[in-house]
């Protein structure tokens, strides 16, 4: 491969193909870690992205550990392959997972479009659709807490929340995200859909199930966000201060000594930009 053109995030520096690397990065921004429900770009998993003069995109992905679960790693590489392949002007996508125990099986399997079973042989019994759906349901629960928690904090009761529809909620990225994940699962996601639905059946949550449903939503969000915090810390431990393409620091921030934590969110916000 010759004439590799790399561009920093946010700038299309390839003179022959203005913006094509940006478009590749934007496509990668639609690829999520299925376990954490965050874009691989934001998490810092995109080590590099480049496009050659003849339209071959080469993307290197990296993960927090050598032993990250191979099924989720496979999904990210396969999704990145599909997303980058669909970018106008890209003639071929080469997605390379680096520094992972199953990198050979995953990279080779995705490039050959072999599927998960085709890539792992007897070690796998099925494709990963059920796994992905299980984690989308967790994403819906966590997303429910993101939009419901401010209302509860403001004094609304669980019963009042149960009477709300998605159209009643203030517009914003959290609501868009919740609608998107619900739609992907085939759950009701329009303005008339109830805010609180069973994540398997889509049925409205019944009054006697409300506290449990809301408790589970909060717990799931805490779990996902804490995992994300550990993953980001591990990625940093592994790759030092070399940020990924499109990486955005998380809410937990970096290494704030316990003694410096205060109730004033602006203090932490300032520190988080220091990383």
């Amino acid at each position, binding site marked *: 491969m010759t004439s590799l053109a790399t561009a920093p995030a946010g700038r299309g520096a390839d003179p022959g193909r203005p913006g094509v690397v940006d478009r590749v990065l934007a496509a990668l921004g639609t690829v999520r870690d299925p376990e954490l429900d965050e874009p691989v770009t934001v998490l810092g998993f995109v080590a590099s992205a480049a496009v050659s003069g003849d339209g071959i995109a080469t993307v290197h992905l990296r993960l927090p550990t050598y032993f990250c679960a191979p099924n989720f790693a496979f999904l990210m590489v396969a999704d990145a392959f599909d997303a980058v392949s669909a970018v106008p002007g890209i003639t071929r996508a080469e997605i390379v997972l680096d520094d992972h125990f199953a990198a050979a099986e995953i990279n080779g399997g995705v490039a050959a479009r072999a599927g998960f079973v085709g890539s792992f042989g007897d070690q796998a019994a099925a494709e990963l659709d059920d796994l992905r759906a299980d984690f989308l349901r967790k994403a819906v629960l966590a997303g429910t807490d993101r939009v419901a928690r401010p209302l509860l904090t403001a004094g609304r009761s669980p019963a009042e929340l149960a009477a709300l529809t998605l159209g009643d909620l203030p517009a914003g990225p959290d609501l868009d995200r919740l609608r998107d994940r619900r739609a992907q699962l085939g759950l009701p996601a329009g303005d008339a859909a109830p805010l609180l639905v069973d994540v398997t059946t889509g049925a409205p949550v019944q009054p006697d199930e409300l506290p449990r449903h809301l408790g589970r939503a909060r717990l799931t969000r805490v779990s996902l966000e*804490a995992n994300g915090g550990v993953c980001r810390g591990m990625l940093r431990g592994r790759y030092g201060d070399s940020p990924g393409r499109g990486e955005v620091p998380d809410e937990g921030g970096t290494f704030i000594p*316990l003694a410096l934590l205060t*109730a004033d969110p602006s203090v932490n916000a300032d520190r988080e930009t220091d990383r």
Partner: protein
Amino acid sequence: MYEKDGEKYFIVDSHMHYWDATPQNWVPGQEQFAKGWIECFHAYQSLGPKETHWTLEHFEGYSEDDLMKDVFEDGHVDVAIFQPTYLKQWYTEGFNTTERNAALADKHPGKFIVNTRFDPREGDPGFKQLEENVARYGSKGLKLYTAEWFGDSRGWKLSDPEAYRYFDKCLELGIKNVHVHKGPTIWPLDKDAFDVSDVDHAATDYPDLNFIVEHVGLPRIEDFCFMATQEPNVYAGLSVVIGGLMHARPRFFAKVMGELLFWVGEDKMTFGSDYGIWEPKWQIEGFVDWDYPSDEFSDYPRLGTAGKKKILGLNAAKLYGIEVPAEAQLPPEAGTPAAEDDARLVDEASATV
């Protein structure tokens, strides 16, 4: 014994290791896995305070003297529970075997409890080995790692029929406590390897065994908490939670602690340093000083001195029958450590969300 503000804390480190990950112990042809494993552990250490970080070389093979100093002399620990992790596919003499731990425990009477392990895929020879280990080392506890590689197999489940054969044997041998650690692989690989529903089955079917889920099921805290509300014999091992979050992600740590206190309760949580990943000293000192960082967390149960004493030692002492000096015991009104009924039933818990 750790003392702070006139309070005495009896410390049981219920999850720690004495490993050999030096290159001379790497199995030829498997070096990338042996190296990948220890480098992954070493990266976890980076989540602790900077002044407690070790070089990779030191981390691969810390000495007996290092351990005794870090854990007992400097680390405030009264009794430490060795949890083995074999990984013989990658490490010639094993990563951290019962034998290796027991050799050190023999030299320091009263300091250690030596747990052993089984792997159901080892069949009858493993059965015999388990019997011998219990007879030789007096093990009352096990550490089970379901992601261990064995030939072409990438893992197992506690609910496998072969595992149940071993649990039957455990009851016969007087084993009480089963520490469970999930990892990234299992058979088949398309399933979620971190799923804890197999622990749920085993805990229901073996009510006389206690199941301590290490790392509170991380990264599946939500599934773990829901299971713990339904199984009186399931406990939350805090290894990795304190070490990996308290310093690096204090706000997430506060939320995770809040959820655990809410769903599982202070009677069912046990401290483990995960040494040599992290030294116990900073974890214990930080935990005794810990409180929620702001009003944002006011919905969660508080954790007082009595609760911290239970988590740092009294709960594990109860599970393992360790004698606690009178000065470190709780007054009767503070409740019973490791009380089985502490975990809230789901319906009861849900009434207060």
